[in-house]
């Protein structure tokens, strides 16, 4: 069952990769991957049937991953919205030789 679902998921990502959903390309690809990963954790790895403590450990792992990715990317994505005056990039090349 799970195996079939995973196979379908794989097929879908490949198909989706050839479609253009604009910004959503990445969201869709990663969304499907996440669904697949969740299936593996819940069923292949028996996450669904394990103790609350184990579940907490798993959630912690992903939560910290989210902290690392989230806060770092928050820096990168807010760099272009500086409160200072418009940052006209100085003409490079000649001035900087």
């Amino acid at each position, binding site marked *: 069952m*799970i*195996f079939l679902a*995973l*196979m379908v998921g*794989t097929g879908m*990502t*490949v198909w*989706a*990769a*050839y*479609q*253009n959903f604009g910004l959503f*390309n*990445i969201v869709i*690809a*990663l969304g*499907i*991957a996440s669904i*697949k*990963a969740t299936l*593996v*954790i819940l*069923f*292949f*790895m028996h996450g669904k049937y*394990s103790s609350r*403590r*184990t579940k907490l*450990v*798993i959630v*912690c*792992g*992903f939560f*910290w*991953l989210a902290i*690392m*990715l989230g806060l*770092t*990317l928050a820096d*990168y*994505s807010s760099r272009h919205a500086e409160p200072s005056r418009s940052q006209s990039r100085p003409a490079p090349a000649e001035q900087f030789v």
Partner: protein
Amino acid sequence: MHRTGELYGQFQTLEQQKETATLGMWVFIVQEILFFGGLFLAYTVNRHAHPTAFGVGGNMLSLKLGGANTVVLIASSLTMAMAVWSATTSKKKLVTLFLIGTLVLGCVFLGVKVVEYKEKFDHHLIPGHGFDISYCSKNAAACGLSAKDAATEVEEIENGLKADPDLNAHAQLYFSLYFGMTGLHALHMVVGAGLLLWLILQAGKGRFDANYNTPVENIGLYWHFVDIVWIYLFPLLYLINRHLA
């Protein structure tokens, strides 16, 4: 030392011992998540900075090989899960069989990976001095491209250069990440294969049954984790923005 179900000195009961092993494995997997997390972070930031080069780089990978590998690896996860199931239900013959199946699929995966690496080497896609993202568009014959594919590739590289004049440099970033990420993943596979080999020997002696199956279960957890990493690597490296080709 690996006598079936032996109680080690530091424990009071067998349940405590088993519980400890499972918890330990999960904690280990959590640290693996963060380990690969660093790679995913490096990937995300660099892709964000150079989307064109990463798109062009991604299209240089073989979707056929990558896709086939995904199927192989998920299948190996299935056989691994079946092996764990057989162990917990004391089907001793089946355990060995499924474990061998997992190992074979794992080796197929690694074999395909070697073929892919070789191809990248031939196509001058190893970062460093010889790197040339446009090598195949210039030497279609050497890369075994059909006339049509070659034309597509030439066009793609031209478009890429228009959007990103420094395409060749930035594509090296992509391929560094490609080799870094898949290389570390493959390394984990190799370790996993070693563990499987040991498990198969133990299973052959009929050591695992409903009472004692912790090694099968824990190595299973590890194997599934490695599978999950690939589930993310495949779309990130091979798939995103395929359509741009």
